[in-house]
């Protein structure tokens, strides 16, 4: 299926045609199993803790989600083409270190920090993209190489140590409020809307689905598959760079361990959202659901003061269970 509209509203007409209210309700529930699972999780936490369902806490969740959202969006594009980008966590680290290093060297030219962070991310993405498209290196291997190399660079920039003594103004990137929202949250919202539009309504988006769905058919139809692939990795890298800046700006320092393991949460969000790792199937709406499920679990388990190691166990088990239920529900609607 290539539906990229929010699943909740899609095909309502088809669903309601000549059916009883009960049948319609069942169909809607089964079709949107992941929405339901998320609602159940939210209700459970709200029931267990008065602190969970407050505006303050929602803001906390959104701020924590923002850096993940950007790399999950990039990852959505990459996974839709049938690839994977394992390097985004390390690219966050090397971008954060580069930006912090720049801010320390030229403290009166802070505008350089976002330029450097994004530039470093784009550079990493360009290398990934060229390796995958021009040199036909499998995406898993190419970006695994980048993961290792970028992490090495991140350590090298600070000679193995974090970068401190960054000017206070550096914190403005993550903490300034625009339209009543902190910049990262605003970027996340703009990002989701933009990516939804691009995948649903542009030639570029259509071609990404085509490349993942049948790369040779796309190529024979005249789609520039190599160039499109390069763009996809470039976007993923660039977003990781922005994400790195936001994370390091939040803590007003740079550390080579920032972003470590983030790639797995980003990939998990995309896959929870129903994307196929073989490409051609997935939506921005799904990624949003996946991201929110992971972030809500992180936040809720924290609020319930569950020890971190048990948090990881519960989170892992719930993610696997959620996907199993979703797949089961989807299969039921088809048969």
């Amino acid at each position, binding site marked *: *299926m*290539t539906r990229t509209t929010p699943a909740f509203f899609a095909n309502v007409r088809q669903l309601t045609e000549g059916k009883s209210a009960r049948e319609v309700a069942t169909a809607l529930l089964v079709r949107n199993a992941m929405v339901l699972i998320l609602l159940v999780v939210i209700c459970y936490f709200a029931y267990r803790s008065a602190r969970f369902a407050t505006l303050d806490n929602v803001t906390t969740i959104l701020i924590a989600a923002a850096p993940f959202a950007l790399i999950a969006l990039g990852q959505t594009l990459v996974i839709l083409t049938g690839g994977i980008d394992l390097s985004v966590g390390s690219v966050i680290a090397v971008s954060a270190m580069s930006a912090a290093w720049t801010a320390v060297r030229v403290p009166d030219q802070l505008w350089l920090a976002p330029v450097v962070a994004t530039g470093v991310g784009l550079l990493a993405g360009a290398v990934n993209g060229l390796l995958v498209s021009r040199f036909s290196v499998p995406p898993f291997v190419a970006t695994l190489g980048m993961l290792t190399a970028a992490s090495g660079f991140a350590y090298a920039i600070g000679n193995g140590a974090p970068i401190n003594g960054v000017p206070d103004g550096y914190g403005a990137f993550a903490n300034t409020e625009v339209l009543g929202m902190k910049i990262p949250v605003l970027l996340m919202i703009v990002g989701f809307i933009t990516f939804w*539009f691009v995948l649903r*309504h*542009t*030639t570029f988006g*259509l*071609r990404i*689905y*085509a490349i993942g*769905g*049948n790369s*040779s*058919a*796309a*190529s*024979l*139809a*005249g*789609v*520039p598959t190599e160039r499109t692939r390069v763009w996809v990795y470039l976007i993923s890298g660039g977003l990781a760079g922005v994400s790195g800046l936001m994370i390091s700006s939040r803590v007003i320092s740079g550390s080579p361990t920032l972003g470590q393991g983030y790639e797995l949460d980003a990939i998990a969000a995309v896959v929870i959202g129903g994307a196929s790792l073989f490409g*051609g*199937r997935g939506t921005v709406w799904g990624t949003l659901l996946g991201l929110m499920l992971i972030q809500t679990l992180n936040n809720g388990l924290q609020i319930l003061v569950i020890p971190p190691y048990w948090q990881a166990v519960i989170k892992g088990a719930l993610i696997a269970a959620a996907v199993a239920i979703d797949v089961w529900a989807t299969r039921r609607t088809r048969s």
Partner: protein
Amino acid sequence: MSEDTAQATELDPGVPILAMTQIAKHYGSSIALQDVDAHIHAGEVLCVLGDNGAGKSTFIKIIAGAHQQTEGTLAVYGHNRRFASPRDALDAGIATVYQDLAVVPLMSVWRNFFLGSEITRGWGPFRRLDVAAMKRIAKDELKKMGIDLRDVDQPIGTLSGGERQSVAIARSVYFGAKLVILDEPTSALGVKQAGVVLRYIAQARDAGLGVIFITHNPHHAYPVGDRFLILNRGKSLGLHEKADISIAELTALMSGGAELASLAHELERAST
């Protein structure tokens, strides 16, 4: 890339749409195709016959721009061309319908129809797909081919094999193809569905297109073909006009070719 950028003399009916002379293709040291001559005019069907591994797919990949010939010339409307990519061939008016590679099964019918040549509206960053127009055109064009789909939004993977082929043919006709190459369009189909596809081939021919029809079934080829190219182990067994050959001779040539091949194989073994 074009080696000759002069405007094609499309209106002169005496000039073939496509003429190939002494075409050869080597993959490293192995020879996939050698000394193949063929030509086709507008409103004609050229059938390419051969067993598996005869070089049929190499032959069409060269015309379609997916591979480049190692030797020989390929002329479109009398101008020598060498296609660097499928896009080049498409721009020259040559469209290829591959049996199993033609479509992206998960994508909707209209998205497949317009893939690679999407209609957009708006400007700059606000340029977006003109979904309504594309759906309408896809539906109309398919209707002309006799395929009436209630919903062009359904994944193309849900259509039958014959319908998928026909969508692909309708697509190339709509995008102004002068020459349509059909790669084994009937081989995976039942008798009735194959008949449907053969009828579309005749329709396309009558509309003034050139059709290159690849098959290993002489009974499918003979009724629609004007000219027959028979390939065997990468070599041409000749280009025959329909007037000069009967279906019995065509069938005999195909099987005779195979016998010759096995004889050569036996002799090789005897000598070592």
